[in-house]
């Protein structure tokens, strides 16, 4: 165990935010779910008692019939805002007095940093470069993430849980968001920060970052696994073996992709149909909503699928064409 290496990564001033996130995200996840579960208990009571549902104050917050439903912004809200502003200022002051912003040597195009890392909040994208070509990892996927986030309100047909924490009423959407936000985005950043060392190689925590390390690339493409060498196509169309191999790969690669889309669509559909409540929500969705949701979820699953193929089965490309590869 090289504890010094772990300390060196965790204590790098620019990595402080991601170390903080390791605590902040679990804390706020717990905080949200705690309030969600409290509300779920209240909902369970109200669902079982129709009379109580008409009379009871439907919040977990304290309530007295004599209290006003609304209070003055000044001072009740604004004093909180000013207090938070002061706390944040103090926090920033202490942080700035204790830790210095990093400054390396002057920019030098002739000396490559190893590892050359993007700012921590983009490390998820950089980590994606391992699994996809830059046009997918750097352009298509970020676009899908942004558009995918923006369509959430338009594809979520569940009217429950609007304006209060809940878990039971929104299981599907919460799990989906957690999968995307914590499971993919934050986790990939953590991997990019703590695991990826020189040469963007995988260093388990505690392993020394050795810039001299050489890994023999054993990655192959899926067509090589299946032994597609173009002998059939070249014989069939009377072309050279190289040309035949190109077309054989193009045709071959379509099948695993189609297979992925079918399997992922079935998986998504199975998840959507798991409970009676989610089936009810499914019934409320329009065709456009359904197609949009399935498409984005399938694309989201493509990342873990490719991670699995790459890290476990050491497969580089699934579909190789002369123009692009996936």
């Amino acid at each position, binding site marked *: 165990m090289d504890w010094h290496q772990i300390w060196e990564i965790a204590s790098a001033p620019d990595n*402080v*935010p991601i170390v903080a*996130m390791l605590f902040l995200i679990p804390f*706020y996840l717990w*905080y*949200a779910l705690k*309030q*969600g579960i409290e509300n779920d208990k*209240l909902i369970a009571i109200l*669902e079982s008692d129709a009379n109580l549902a008409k009379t009871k104050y439907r919040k977990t*917050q304290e309530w007295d019939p004599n*209290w006003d439903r609304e*209070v*003055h912004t*000044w001072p*009740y809200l*604004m004093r*909180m*805002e000013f207090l938070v502003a002061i706390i*944040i200022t103090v*926090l*920033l002051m202490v*942080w700035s*007095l204790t830790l210095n*912003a*990093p*400054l*390396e040597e*002057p*920019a*030098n*195009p002739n*000396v490559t*940093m190893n590892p*050359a*890392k*993007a700012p*921590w*909040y983009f490390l998820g994208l950089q980590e994606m470069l391992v699994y996809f*070509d*830059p046009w997918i*990892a*750097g*352009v298509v996927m970020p676009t899908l993430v*942004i558009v995918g986030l*923006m369509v*959430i309100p338009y594809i*979520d047909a569940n009217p*429950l*849980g*609007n*304006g*209060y924490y*809940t878990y039971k*009423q*929104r299981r599907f*959407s919460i799990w989906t968001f957690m999968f995307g*936000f914590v499971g993919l985005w934050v986790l990939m950043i953590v991997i990019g920060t703590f695991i990826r060392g020189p040469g963007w190689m995988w260093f388990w925590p505690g392993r020394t970052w050795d810039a001299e390390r050489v890994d023999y690339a054993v990655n192959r493409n899926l067509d090589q696994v299946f032994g597609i060498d173009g002998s059939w196509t070249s014989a069939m169309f009377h072309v050279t073996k190289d040309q035949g191999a190109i077309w054989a790969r193009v045709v071959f690669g379509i099948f695993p992709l189609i297979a992925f889309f079918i399997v992922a669509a079935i998986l998504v559909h199975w998840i959507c149909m798991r409970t009676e409540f989610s089936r009810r929500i499914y019934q*409320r969705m329009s065709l456009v909503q359904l197609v949009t949701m399935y498409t984005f979820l399938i694309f989201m699953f493509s990342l873990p699928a490719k991670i699995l193929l790459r890290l476990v089965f050491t497969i580089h490309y699934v579909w190789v064409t002369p*123009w692009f590869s996936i």
Partner: protein
Amino acid sequence: MPEENGGSKEKTGVLEKVQADAAALRETLKEKTKQQVDGLKEPEKTQLYRSMFRVKHDDEPRNRALSVLSNVFFHLHPAKVNRDATKYNFTWGMGGITFYLFIVLTFTGVLLMFYYHPTKVQAFRDILYLENDVPFGKLLRNMHRWAAHLMIIAVWLHMFRVFMTGSYKRPREFNWCVGVLLMVLTMLLSFTGYLLPDDQLGFWAVTVGTNMARATPFLGHEGPLGGLLGMTPYNDVRFALLGGSIVDANALLRAYIWHCIAIPLIVSIFLGVHFWRVRKDGGISGPAPVMLESEIKEERNPRPVVLRPSGMSQHDK
């Protein structure tokens, strides 16, 4: 001349008048001074004060409301809010913290601009100058850096909270989209600032980042089908971002302009829309009373829009 004589007579008359006035003032000076000093004990009654604040700040409901409504900075708030929304546990204050950090960053950023030249010759030296010679320069740079990181965390947690409370649901769908764009802009702000010290860290981070742009489909020279549109390293989207084919002087200037002027302007506009829509979409989403599964109404298409007298339009629930 008689007129001149008469004139000089008048002058002696003025002198006497002044003397008489001075004598009168001597008598009332004490009283007037006392009045003035007593007036200072109630500054809210002075003309200066009233011209600035317009309303009394007595502790009564009307003035509490007016003090919020008649102040251009405070009037982003409604006069009254949901009692339960004032507690920390619902909102976590993350949106407000994000906005506060934006202000902190603008403030420290403007101060940093006084010491910075976006040129290859000067940029790195300016950082050294800031760190070693400018009074509180190091603190200033540290605060700007850490506030930027903190802002990204706060934006993410804000989005997380809005998701977990389902606040993106009707009628706030559009404001969620504005928020997503603001999050992207926040990250772009931070990223464009990364290059400005012109050190190895920023240089390679921006090199890695913009290298992805050259793989943009159609618009990058290494991207799929980029050749179709005649893309080369000298005319593709990466060239547009860097103002050249390598990360150099033009890239530094472009990053500087995007970072200090263009993106903050765009963010300010979106922020205005975001805050305005929070109010127009019916204020903060909760904590709302819980809704039961048995109360779900069947969808009506198209949903009727109810116009409220206050100008808020709200779809019926």
